């Protein structure tokens, strides 16, 4: 019997090759895409999942009440970790973590490494396996380092290097270290990404901040004792906070901050390690959101759904051709159940073929997919037994629903009726119409999302940020020399070139450079009896001119002699609540009172998802610069870039040149949006494609059902166009219905998404109209191919069958 079923299934597939291949193609593409997308999503969700103690390790962050509402942050002062561990019960291990980069030198070789300043407990708390050297406490000695496998190979040439020494350039000074252990490279799904771990005490800020509770600049992670819950720990820490942050709390009270629900002005809170990757502190509390991976997963499900709907509708469309077989089998004694299993079995066969092809296809596409969407996803994410079981069940369920529903309908047809070959499918029509409405609704949602996303990216890319981004190259000063010396050399070397319009430096980049780093530094100080906060930026003189910033008041830094003064931006003027900012003196650091030399018009020095924050510019030779900026003429920009690169190579022969134009840097800051946009765009293209395949099948069915009617109408005298319109009208009605349903849902959804951006486009009906027109035009085009053909047919043919 099974053999008979298989034979029939195979011959049916073979007989109608267009139908089978469209179906298999659609399903396998959907499967492939679903596999790839879920791979990316599960990769994202697997972040920091590999740590053995992930359930007990937390990031320690604090929430403080300010007059402007609560503020949350992860930066802690140097003595914090040590005190927390000794004063609050329940901490098993604790470590400070500060990410940085440094030039590593071994004999002749110099490379720039991502480093992490950590405490010895780090390797106990986190699972970064040691492959050579001290397994348990590799950082016991102050001068020890743990180096990653890959960095060891690049720097030393091999990994048998335990005990060897190397030098690191820290704050312009070469210091010796000894390799205590070699660790496996940090996995791609780790939030910590470093080539080398060193003792925290060696970091350049350490000495000056050893006892200061004011300078907050690193993160702290704690591993709680088994018996202690995060909530218990948080409430245990109240006394600790009251003791060490007494002054800050008093200041907050004085400035008019409101206490939180616990009547506290400052609290220590714990964030589970697994949430770190997905947390934003922007709104004043730890907001954990995994919406991005779930969004990707839902796109995958939506695509599977669309493909499933197609399959259902196409099987129904085809069932008319098999009515005779159904009737015959029934008269020969087949039961409903047997027929159900026969047809379901056929679906299952087709599904398995499509699944196999889908897996194959995804394997072929995985590399371009990874580079296109910047994911580190691998099949490892999908090869866990639990995923395989869930995935297998999912396919079975899908095939049961998608293959079972038509099978169920087919097996229920009356014997005599099916022998006559007339299909009465009123119930099915209802289901079919609903499915089609949902299907096109989804396509519509995805297309609108794509349009809005692209619109927002375009807006961010083209927005006037308040500075010159097309003509300025920035690059990190990642060489051996001191930053001011390098800058001086650069200026000299570049002076002769008429295409170079200016050279300056700052301690921060604009946008995200090719080094992949983005920093922010902020400081709080007392001003007229209140605490005010500002971002600060150390610049070389000419910074304002080189970047084309506008002055609202006063003047910019002109010469090194202006180093006692400061510049502020307009947001800072508001923060100071100062009517006449030019007369203000700010006492930011120690006793020195700095006069405000000028006010810079607000410009976007941070990403566009933030409002413009207060900013203060310093020009101090005591503070190092980190980036150089070179303004070039609008002509020969590529040559100018090459020239800068050449000069850099001359000045710092061992350091990579990581220069890029600022507009590229800005583009890099919304890589995530671009990746999401690409993803949704490809999802929507696929969705509309698959939906149209379904629509095509539907039009085939409807036309075949109405052949006789069409014939009669033609004989009576209907024109081709009126028949085409008649046949298309029903689809059009369904389409318009789905547009009507999808538009408000997309509107709400996209409005929510846009809320994430401080600077955003306004949603307007144009987006929905454009998406709607697109869908309708494509759909009509698809349907017409069948309907016009039907309308053109000679009526004698269709009427002869009686």
């Amino acid at each position, binding site marked *: *019997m099974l053999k008979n079923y298989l034979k029939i299934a195979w*011959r049916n597939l073979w007989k109608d090759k267009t139908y089978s291949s469209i179906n298999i193609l659609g399903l396998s593409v959907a499967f492939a895409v679903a596999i790839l997308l879920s791979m990316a999503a599960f990769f994202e969700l697997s972040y920091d999942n590999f740590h053995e103690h992930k359930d007990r390790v937390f990031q320690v962050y604090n929430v403080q009440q300010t007059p402007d509402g609560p503020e949350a942050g992860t930066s802690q002062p140097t003595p914090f970790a040590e005190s927390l561990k000794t004063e609050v019960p329940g901490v098993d291990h604790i470590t400070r973590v500060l990410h940085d980069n440094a030039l590593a030198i071994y004999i002749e070789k110099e490379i720039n490494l991502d480093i992490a300043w950590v405490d010895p407990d780090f390797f106990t708390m986190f699972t970064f396996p040691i492959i050579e050297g001290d397994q348990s406490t590799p950082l016991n000695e102050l001068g020890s380092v743990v180096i990653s496998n890959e960095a060891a190979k690049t720097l030393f040439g091999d990994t048998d290097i335990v005990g060897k020494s190397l030098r690191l350039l820290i704050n312009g000074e070469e210091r010796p270290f000894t390799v205590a252990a070699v660790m496996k490279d940090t996995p791609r799904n780790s939030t910590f990404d470093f080539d080398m771990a060193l003792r925290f005490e060696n970091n350049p800020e350490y000495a000056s901040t050893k006892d200061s509770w004011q300078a907050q600049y690193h993160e702290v992670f704690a591993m709680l004792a088994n018996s202690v819950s995060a909530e218990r720990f948080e409430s245990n820490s109240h006394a600790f906070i009251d003791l060490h942050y007494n002054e800050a709390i008093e200041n907050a009270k004085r400035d008019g901050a409101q206490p939180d629900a616990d009547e506290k002005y400052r609290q220590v809170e714990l964030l589970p390690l697994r949430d770190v990757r997905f947390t934003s502190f922007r709104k004043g509390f730890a907001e954990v959101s995994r919406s991005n991976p779930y969004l990707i997963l839902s796109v995958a499900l939506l695509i599977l759904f669309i493909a499933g709907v197609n399959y259902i509708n196409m099987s129904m469309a085809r069932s008319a051709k098999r009515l005779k077989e159904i009737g015959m089998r029934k*008269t020969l004694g087949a039961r409903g159940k*047997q027929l159900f299993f026969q047809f379901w079995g056929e679906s299952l066969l087709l599904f398995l073929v499509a699944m196999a092809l889908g897996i194959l296809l995804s394997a072929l596409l995985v590399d371009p997919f990874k580079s296109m969407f910047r994911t580190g996803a691998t099949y490892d994410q999908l090869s866990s037994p639990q995923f395989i079981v869930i995935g297998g069940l999912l396919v079975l369920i899908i095939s049961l629903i998608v293959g079972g529903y038509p099978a169920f309908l087919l097996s229920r047809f009356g014997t005599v009726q099916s022998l006559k070959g007339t299909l009465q499918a009123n119930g099915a029509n209802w289901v079919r119409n609903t499915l089609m409405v949902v299907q096109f609704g989804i396509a519509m949602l995805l297309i609108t999302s794509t349009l809005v996303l692209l619109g927002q990216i375009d807006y961010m890319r083209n927005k006037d940020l308040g500075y010159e981004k097309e003509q300025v190259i920035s690059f990190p000063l990642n060489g051996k020399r001191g930053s001011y010396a390098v800058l001086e050399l650069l200026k000299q070397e570049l002076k002769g070139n008429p295409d170079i319009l200016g050279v300056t430096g700052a301690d921060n980049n604009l946008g995200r450079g090719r080094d992949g780093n983005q920093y922010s530094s902020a400081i709080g100080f007392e001003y007229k009896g209140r605490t005010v906060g500002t971002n600060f930026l150390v610049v070389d003189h000419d910074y304002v001119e080189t970047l084309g910033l506008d002055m609202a008041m006063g003047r910019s830094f002109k010469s090194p002699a202006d180093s006692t003064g400061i510049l502020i931006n307009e947001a800072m003027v508001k923060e100071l609540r100062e009517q006449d900012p030019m007369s203000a003196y700010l006492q930011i650091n120690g006793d020195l009172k700095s006069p405000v030399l000028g006010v810079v018009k607000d410009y976007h020095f941070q990403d566009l998802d933030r409002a413009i924050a207060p900013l203060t510019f310093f020009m101090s030779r005591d503070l190092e610069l980190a980036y150089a900026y070179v303004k070039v003429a609008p002509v020969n920009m590529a040559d100018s870039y090459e020239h800068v690169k050449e000069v850099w190579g001359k000045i710092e022969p061992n350091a990579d040149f990581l220069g890029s134009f600022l507009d590229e840097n800005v583009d890099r800051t919304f890589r995530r949006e671009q990746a999401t946009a690409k993803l949704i765009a490809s999802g929507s293209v696929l969705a509309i494609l698959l939906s149209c395949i379904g629509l095509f099948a539907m039009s085939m069915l409807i036309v075949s059902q109405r052949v006789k009617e069409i014939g009669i109408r033609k004989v009576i005298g209907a024109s081709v166009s009126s028949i085409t319109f008649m046949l298309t009208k029903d689809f059009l009605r369904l389409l318009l219905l789905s547009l009507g349903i999808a538009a408000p849902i997309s509107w709400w959804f996209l409005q929510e998404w846009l809320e994430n951006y401080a600077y955003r486009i306004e949603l307007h009906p144009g987006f929905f109209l454009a998406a709607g027109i697109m869908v309708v035009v494509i759909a009509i085009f698809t349907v017409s191919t069948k309907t016009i053909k039907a309308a053109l047919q000679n009526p004698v043919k269709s009427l002869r069958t009686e």
Partner: protein
Amino acid sequence: MLLELNNIFKWVQQGGQRVFLLKDINLKVAEGEFISVMGPSGSGKSTLLNVIGMLDGFNEGEYHFMDESVHTLREKHRAELYKQYIGFVFQAYHLIDELTVYENLEMPLLYKKIKGSERKAMVADMLDRFNIVGKKDLFPTQLSGGQQQLVGVARALISKPKLILADEPTGNLNSKQGQDIMELFKQLNNEGVTIIQVTHSEKNAEYGSRIIQLLDGRKV
């Protein structure tokens, strides 16, 4: 008595009115009979055949088939009954196009869950008997109409039914082919199979031992 119909009525509702397809049909069929049902289009011939074959239900009346009361039987038992005792032959042959002659013959046996070796023997026997051994691997579309109907009859006979119901078996055939099929029926009848056929042709009806005339769902 093979089967007995008592006061069978069948109707459909059309525009609030009952339209009768069968009206008060009484019929007794003894084993070994060869009955021809005749009547104009729409007189209810095929409906009657479907009712006898249990493919279709009826609204009123009693139907006894080999001492079973069909009108009280559940769908499942009814299917068992006709699966075992009735074979069908159709005007349009209704062979499954995707299966070969051999596989088409085999199919009823599959539904009766007959063992492989026995099945093989039965199919081979049937192929032999109808002289179509050479055609067993062909698909229905590769055969002439007469040959297709021959396969159709063979398929109806393979599960050794007591009753063959034939709905215009020669309707799609030319006269020579039709005559062959009728001769075949005659011969089967002589071997003891009961046959009820619907036909338009007086000549074919003559093959039967009894003729039933229908008009507007009523026996005349």
